[in-house]
Structure formats: structure tokens, C-alpha cells
């Protein structure tokens, strides 16, 4: 019965590695770029290159492979289900059909493409995990704000949106803690929250929602007062506590990534790898 202390929020792990040191703005751009690159990969040889890249990144960031892998466990059934569906319902050129039963067709090409999709999805999971393991939620949201700040010019409320995001992130652990407290109080009086089938459990958990909402509203009210009493009036003209400048190292990491993937694509194209 430990939710709070056993849950990892935002994944961040303190550290001093090279990946930790990359400016979060650059890191966000890199993450998006890498995800795009990965989705452009169409061959198995390409996934080998991605694998190499991921191994390098994990080595540089000192993150444990098995630890990230463990995080995959809860979503594994869904991934496998999607994989199976893809194999069964793949509609492509009529290639070598191995097996056919009514509308279910299993083709070599279908298996190939769905395996590739799986590998790519898992790679994206890994690279995002490394990102969140090495980036503090605070510096992540700060960097996000800086990246979309120019949109303020076209009346896009970037500061406000990020502020809402920051507060939401900030309150996840608090609410989980609150939920844990409520659950323990009910268990202590003989409630069996972890017994019964799925529906029974859902009904029991719904009894926790009302007190949880009430306490969340209470907290929100306090927060509003605390912010207003410190003269918070939105983003206009606010200065920053930490001002970060991009360093040569940040550009190097950027160039390295672009170079790596360009070489990957060129190699695959040039040698016509499968």
C-alpha cells in the first residue's frame, strides 16, 4: 500500500553526465528531431543504427538499460496487442500471403512492417525515457516556455499555458499523496480496496474521488491566494531567476546528432541495405 513513495514522477534522476548538461532547449529540439528521424527509418538495418545511437546515449547519460526496460512492462500488453492487430489486418500490396482465413491475412510484408513499427515505437520510448531521466521537470517547462515564447507576438498565451502545465505537474505528486492517505484511512477501517473484480474495485475507488476533489479545490484556492499575495499578474514583463546561455557544447551535441542520422540515411541509401 505505497503509491507515493513507489511511483516515479517525471523520472528525473540527478546526475552529472554529458546528457544532463545539454541545455534543455536544445535537448527538446533534439528529442523532437530524433523522433522524426526514427519515424523516417524504413529498414531493419536502420533500426540497428538507432540501437547503436540509443546505446551511446544511454552510456553517456549513465542510465540503466534494465531500469528503463522495466518501465515498459505496464504498456507491454497494449504494444503486443497492437502488434498482433497490425499483422492480422495489414492491407498492403498482395505479397506472399502465408495464411488466410476469411478477412484475416498474414503476409510476409505485414510481419516485416509491424516488427519494424514495434522496434521504432520502443526506440522512441527509450529516447524519451532518457530525456526525462536527465531533464528536471522545472527546466523542461522553462525551456518549453522559452521555445514557444515568440508565439506571444501573435497573441498566443504561451506563458499562461506553460504556467498551467507547471502547476499541473507540480500537483500530481501532491494529489497522489492525498489519494494514498485517503485509501489508507479507508483500509484502516476495514475497506477492501484491493479485492473484488475490476468493476467492484472501480466503484470502491469512486468513493475516494469526492474527498480528493474537495481537497484539490481547497489547494487550488490556497494556491491562487498565495500567488496573488505575491503580486503574480501573468507573464508580461516577468524576469527570470536563472538565465541560461547556449554554450558551444550544446551546438556540438546538436551537430553530432544531425551528422549521425544523416550518415545513417546515406549509408542505408548508398549500400542499399535491407
Amino acid at each position: 500500500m505505497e503509491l507515493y513513495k513507489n511511483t516515479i514522477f517525471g523520472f528525473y534522476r540527478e546526475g552529472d553526465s554529458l546528457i544532463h548538461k545539454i541545455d534543455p532547449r536544445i535537448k527538446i529540439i533534439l528529442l523532437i528531431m530524433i523522433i522524426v528521424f526514427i519515424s523516417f527509418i524504413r529498414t531493419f538495418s536502420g533500426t540497428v543504427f538507432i540501437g547503436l545511437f540509443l546505446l551511446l546515449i544511454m552510456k553517456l547519460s549513465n542510465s540503466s538499460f534494465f531500469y528503463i526496460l522495466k518501465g515498459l512492462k505496464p504498456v507491454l500488453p497494449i504494444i503486443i496487442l497492437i502488434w498482433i492487430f497490425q499483422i492480422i489486418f495489414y492491407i498492403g500490396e498482395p505479397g506472399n500471403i502465408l495464411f488466410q482465413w476469411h478477412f484475416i491475412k498474414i503476409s510476409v510484408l505485414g510481419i516485416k512492417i509491424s516488427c519494424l513499427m514495434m522496434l521504432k515505437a520502443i526506440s522512441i520510448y527509450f529516447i524519451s525515457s532518457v530525456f526525462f531521466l536527465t531533464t528536471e521537470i522545472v527546466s523542461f517547462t522553462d525551456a518549453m516556455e522559452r521555445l514557444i515564447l515568440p508565439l506571444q507576438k501573435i497573441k498566443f498565451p504561451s506563458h499562461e499555458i506553460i504556467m498551467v502545465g507547471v502547476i499541473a505537474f507540480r500537483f500530481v505528486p501532491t494529489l497522489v499523496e492525498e489519494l494514498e492517505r485517503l485509501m489508507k484511512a479507508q483500509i484502516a477501517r476495514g475497506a477492501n480496496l484491493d479485492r473484488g473484480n475490476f468493476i467492484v474495485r472501480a466503484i470502491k475507488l469512486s468513493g475516494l474521488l469526492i474527498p480528493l476533489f474537495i481537497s484539490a479545490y481547497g489547494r487550488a484556492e490556497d494556491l491562487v491566494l498565495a500567488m496573488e499575495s505575491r503580486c503574480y499578474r501573468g507573464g508580461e514583463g516577468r524576469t527570470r531567476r536563472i538565465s541560461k546561455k547556449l554554450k558551444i557544447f550544446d551546438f556540438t551535441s546538436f551537430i553530432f546528432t544531425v551528422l549521425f542520422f544523416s550518415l545513417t540515411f546515406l549509408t542505408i541509401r548508398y549500400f542499399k541495405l535491407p
Partner: protein
Amino acid sequence: MSKVIIKVENLFHSYMQGTPFEKEVLHGLKFDIYEGEKLAIVGPTQSGKSTLLQYFNAIFIPKKGRVIVDKQDTKDSGLNLKELRRKVAMLFQHPDSQLFKETVADDIAFGLKNMNFPEKVIEITIKKALATVSLDPNEFFYRYIFSLSGGEKKKVAIAGILALDPEILVLDDPTAGLDPKGRGDFLNSIKFLHDKLKLTTVFVSSNMDDVVELADRVMVLVDGKIKMIDIPENIFIKKEKLLSYGLTLPSVVEVVDELIKSGINIDEKIISIDQLEESLFSYVIARDKVPKQSH
């Protein structure tokens, strides 16, 4: 010594087991709680007090070590958890997390319904429980939880667990957040309950005055290790040690300290206000006697 009711043997506890964040918070605790005693657990924040309490009613099951409550090992797979949790009543720090139904009666009935009490008995039991914590059953039965004051909420929360007829009362920092009057009321009702129902009481407190007022024995828990476990007089005499753990002293002990420093000769083992009053009284009488004899 009377019967041992809770036996803790070599108890370890870690958070986030099997992750890089793993942290051990209890390091091999070993102690006994005797039937009918009032044991206070004190310690600085993050010392593992609240974690330890949750082992007594099997919210936590030991992974390493054993906790035996009333001759039953909480690790035992055949354990009747409901019965154990009825026996060991737990009051949480914030009554708001414990009260979640709309009305007082509904909330107290929650535990009773979980324990499968018959419908007919429930209403009588609720009224009895309210009376035990000195709340008027007729007034409070249909009151909304939101309309209660902090002290009343605390009392309703206790009524909710007392209705289950427990044998052991476990309280997590029970007087935190109460005003002085509420605190006095609350301590009195706990004392009253203890004397009347002979409940074994284990409580965590950050207020040393509460400890002096309630406890028969005090356990000092620092960084998940038991530093001292003894009667309050023997604990509070070790002032430097307590201060070095980041704990405070009972206000009476501080007053006695100052009095002794300013040359008033009283026993430094005094910890309660009654003892202080008595010895100051006899000190004044003794002092007044001296000049009379010299005349």
C-alpha cells in the same frame, strides 16, 4: 511487566524497492509494546515514525523482519486482516483524510458496515461512540462533516474508529493543527478513553508537552534507528542528546532548567506541570521558614 501485545522484531523498511531510488528508512527495529501502556514515539521529521505506525495494522507487511500483533504474525497468509484492523484502530494525522462521507453518522457507519455489523446495531453503536468522545449524539448524528470545527472533526474521526471496539489505539501526531483548547480537550478524552476502555495507546507526537502528559514510555526514533526507549523522566533528563537529534524539550523541562540556573534548588527530573507546582510550593515554604528561624 504485563503482557506483550505488539512485538516488533528486526524490522526493516525501504521505499521504492528495486529501483535506483531505493532508500532504507527503518533499520532493524526491535521493541515490545505492553498491553495497556501508552507509548509515545518521538523523532525528527523523516525519521520513519509514520511508516512504523503503519506496520501495526498491517497496511505495511514486513518484507524483512516480523511484526506480531496480539500473537498473530502480520506476515501470516491466513491472517484475518479485517479482524486485525478492527483490533488496531488507527487515527491519521489529518482528520480530513479520514472523514469522507457527508454526515457524521454515515462516516462512523463506514467502518461498521465494512466489518459487517448488523443494521440494527449500527445506529446504537454510532450514538454510543459519539457519547464516548463527549459529542452530543442527538446534535451531531445528522451534522454535515463540512460544518464541523477542527477539534470536532478529530473527535468524529476517533468516534469512527472507537465504534469498531478496538483494543489498540494508534495515533499519528494527534494534536497537530489543533488550537490550545482543542488540544486540551483532545488529550483529556484520550486519557479518559485509556482509563475507561483500557486501550493500549501508541502515538507519534511532535509536541513534547503531549508526550509528558500522556506517555508511560517514550521511544526516540532517529533516522530509522531506536536511540532510546524508557520512561519519560529518564528520557527528558538527557537534554543535550535530545537537542542534538533536533528534538525540542517539554516546556516544563525548559522552565525547570532556567529555574535551576537562576539558583532555585529543585529536582531536575521534574517533567510535568503538577510536579513543578508541588516542588515550587515546598521550595517556597522551605525558603520562608529560614528567615523565621533566624529571627
